[in-house]
């Protein structure tokens, strides 16, 4: 039972990440490989505030979200001038810098040793120690993020973001403040990723920089690309595919040493097949050209 709950909690956490990255990719048309950086900043900020200042989880979470949104300016600003491949490289640089900071600022982050013993939050005086309660809590947060995403995607803001994705010049000629909209998209996307980071930290109760590497960013990007972007269902089907698939492999009696490699091969194959035959992903509306 706990095993199933664990899988669902992971689907919720990665679901939040995929929905937030979808705002940038499917709506803003910005392929970025630094989402694990935002995820990590959120996880570390929340954890450090809880552990060092005894701060309440929700307060720490809010600070984490705000700080991550503020940090997103470092990548949002270059995105105003850089397009396509150049922006992709800038986001790669940002990811590497954040990882280097998490890994090397040992006084603050304990570097490669990681931070163990992160407490679970209390909600209405109830500690969420049991897997079931945490699953419910995570489900509620996921549902809230889902609703927020739905409102954002269908709002005038979402519409302008789509217009910018299609044709920045035409959007500007219609009086749309393209730089401001892009900065907002980054701030919101990064803030939501930070929520996923905080949830992950208190769920696993241990974080270290290896959870927030470039590989992780590519994994999140693959979720959105395989599932499809530009709507709500695409990223979510991507999450189910990418999280549940390796679990199925467990039951196929593949030796433990081989399983991770098989998984990587399947992910890679899925990407190649989709890029060839269904560029917009399994259920996506938007494809890069």
């Amino acid at each position, binding site marked *: 039972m706990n095993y199933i709950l664990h899988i669902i909690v992971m689907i919720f956490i990665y679901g939040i990440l995929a929905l937030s990255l979808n705002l940038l990719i499917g709506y803003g048309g910005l392929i970025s490989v630094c989402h694990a950086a935002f995820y990590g900043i959120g996880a570390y900020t929340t954890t450090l505030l809880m552990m060092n200042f005894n701060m309440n989880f929700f307060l720490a979470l809010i600070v984490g979200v705000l700080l991550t949104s503020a940090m997103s300016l470092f990548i949002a600003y270059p995105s105003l001038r850089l397009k396509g491949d150049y922006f992709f490289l800038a986001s790669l640089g940002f990811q590497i810098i954040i990882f280097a900071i998490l890994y090397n600022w040992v006084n603050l982050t304990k570097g490669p040793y990681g931070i163990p013993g992160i407490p679970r939050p209390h909600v209405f005086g109830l500690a969420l120690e049991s897997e079931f309660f945490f699953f419910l809590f995570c489900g509620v947060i996921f549902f809230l993020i889902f609703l927020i995403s739905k409102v954002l995607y269908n709002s*005038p*803001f979402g519409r*302008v973001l789509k217009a910018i994705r299609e044709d920045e*010049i*035409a959007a*500007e000629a*219609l*009086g*749309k403040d393209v730089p401001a909209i892009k900065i907002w998209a980054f701030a919101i996307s990064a803030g939501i990723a930070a929520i996923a980071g905080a949830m992950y930290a208190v769920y696993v109760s241990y974080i270290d920089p290896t959870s927030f590497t470039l590989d992780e960013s590519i994994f999140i990007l693959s979720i959105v690309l395989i599932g499809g972007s530009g709507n709500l269902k695409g990223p979510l089907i991507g999450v189910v595919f990418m999280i549940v698939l390796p679990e199925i492999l467990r039951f196929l009696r593949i030796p433990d040493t081989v399983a991770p490699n098989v998984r990587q091969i399947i992910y890679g194959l899925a990407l190649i097949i989709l890029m060839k035959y269904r560029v917009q992903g399994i259920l996506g509306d938007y494809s890069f050209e």
Partner: protein
Amino acid sequence: MEITVLNKMKTDTLILSGISRSFGGLKAVDDVSVEFPPGRITGLIGPNGAGKTTLFNIISGFIRPDKGEIWWQGEKLSKYPPWTIAMKGIGRLFQDVRVFKKITAIENVLLGKSNPGECPVNLLFNSKNVIARYREDIERAREWLAFVGLKEKENVLAENLSYGQQKLLAIARLLMADSKVLLLDEPTAGINPSLIKDLILMIKKIAESGRTVIFIEHNMNIVLEIAHWVYFLNEGRIVAFGRPEDVLGNHEVRLTYLGL
């Protein structure tokens, strides 16, 4: 020249004064000074590469002039980015249409107008206003779609419309913006003749309501029919200007442009 005194006061006349712009060694626009008063339909004509579209790009802020200034309603427009110029009421129809292809026709038209919900803060704190404005706008957007004959295509992705229909969609989007100055780059190219008639009527109506219309056109019959005033550009300079019948009768215009 028509301009005797440069009037920079708070007026609805769009004033271009000494605009020049070069690309490398090529002078795309060379010392152009013109006034576009409200209520007037002005035609820009001239051979390909004469600088007509570049002039539109300069007015709408996509290209900065090397020299010269643009004034409108007492403000120097040439210091603003394109989106601010558009917000101030200068609308533009692109020659290459530029509809948003992967979104629906109605959404394309809705984008013509700004909504407070384009700022996420308003979604959170001013949602009533956002929804109220959306309800008004969607009605209006439907009216404009019906006007250009695309009522049935409301929920069709723009990329699935024909070129002519995309052009009509771009016109509906521009009309939705309710601009005071309309820059129309070849508005009738690629549109079927029956719709051109409606479009001409519409352009005339827009001008009668006191707006400024500036259009680039290669079809001289249309120029003769709707333009009150015409500028003939060649190699970035204004070579002739005046009433359309006079300009089209001009010897140099007939020789360099019409080939007569």
